[in-house]
């Protein structure tokens, strides 16, 4: 059994509905699942203290975060909850998966330098368009593949394929949204080791 911490800033004024939709996809995905310990962290408890309390006793875990981001931090209305300067050392032996803007520019590398095993995120803006599930499907896809046992190098390749499938299905009728999805695809970045969920469990 491995702990899975899932942070969703679902109350944010701009991206809350997207994050909420992604959270519902996660809940659906994990419905009936009994083999992992899953903790959801909502907007009202999305702060650095809660992250510290949740993570500091864990020798290895999986962390996903859907919120605003900048190059060196993730943040919500409560402030920075993951930051290169505040709590980067909490993520040793973790798989870190985030759908947020620009954290691939610095935070991802800082996490790996501080013992995180593997980081997935975006080095550009992350775009979404109301009513288009393609954005959340692509965003969530890699995380679910990791839970299913796929190794992270393969996950990265499969996420690109997933993005391409949706871009190709959309661009004739919905060229504007397809152009944003392409930007998300090219912003996707993986940093760190090629791991699987099983190799992470062995570190517990």
């Amino acid at each position, binding site marked *: 059994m491995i702990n899975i911490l899932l942070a969703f800033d679902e109350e944010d004024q701009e991206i809350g509905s997207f994050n909420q939709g992604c959270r519902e996809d996660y809940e659906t995905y994990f419905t009936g699942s009994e083999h992992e310990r899953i903790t959801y962290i909502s907007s009202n408890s999305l702060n650095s203290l809660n992250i510290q309390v949740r993570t500091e006793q864990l020798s290895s875990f999986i962390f996903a975060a859907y919120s605003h981001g900048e190059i060196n931090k993730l943040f919500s209305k409560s402030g920075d909850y993951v930051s290169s300067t505040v709590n980067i050392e909490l993520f040793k032996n973790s798989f870190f998966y985030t759908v947020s*803007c620009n954290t691939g520019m610095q935070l991802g590398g800082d996490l790996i330098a501080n013992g995180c095993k593997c980081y997935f995120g975006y080095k550009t803006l*992350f775009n979404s368009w109301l009513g288009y599930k393609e954005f959340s499907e692509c965003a969530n896809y890699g995380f679910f593949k990791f839970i299913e046992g796929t190794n992270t190098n393969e996950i990265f390749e499969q996420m690109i394929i997933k993005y391409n499938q949706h871009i190709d299905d959309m661009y004739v009728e919905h060229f504007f949204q397809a152009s944003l999805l392409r930007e998300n695809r090219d912003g996707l970045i993986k940093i760190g080791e090629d791991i699987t969920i099983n190799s992470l469990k062995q570190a517990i």
Partner: protein
Amino acid sequence: MDLCVLIIDDDIQRIKEGALIWELEDKFGSDNIAFESDPNEAINYIEENLHKNIIILLDIQFPDKVMNGHEILSKIREISELIPVILWSAVSEDKETFSDFINNNAFGFLSKSATSEEMLLMIDRAISYFKTSLDNTIEDWIIQKDGDKDKPVYFTSEGKSYSLNQILNEIRTQTDVGKSFAKKLNELTIDLLLRNKETLND
């Protein structure tokens, strides 16, 4: 395509009596031909009509006015890079100072002695520019969309959100965000070509 020709000239009365105006009104309809003799009023007109595709015929010399054609073009470019501005002058082309016109992306130069055919040919080129520019493709796509265009639909995890009307405004005023939409479409096109999903037509 919602199109308007704006003539900015200090001698509007003489222009209105010319054959060219009859031809423009015949081609585009009299409601779609606008005249401004005051540069400031012209700037106001442009700002209030950014929802239209405006083609501007701009006189260069404005005696006794606050701005000349050089300065007016510069002001227009502060509003939008997308408006084709055709310089229209009695001063011959070889005697004009063109460096700032080039820098401010003037669409073309016409002598006031040009024939109606030459003028209409230049305007047709401007219309063709509208039809083929990526920004206008996006504009047309947004204009044709149904539903509430003031409701935010596009979000970034950086914390920005835009409705269709806001996107349209960003494009028309050519902000960095507005310019980025055309860039994204160019990048999508290149991506589709490189992955052999599309080919260039001859």
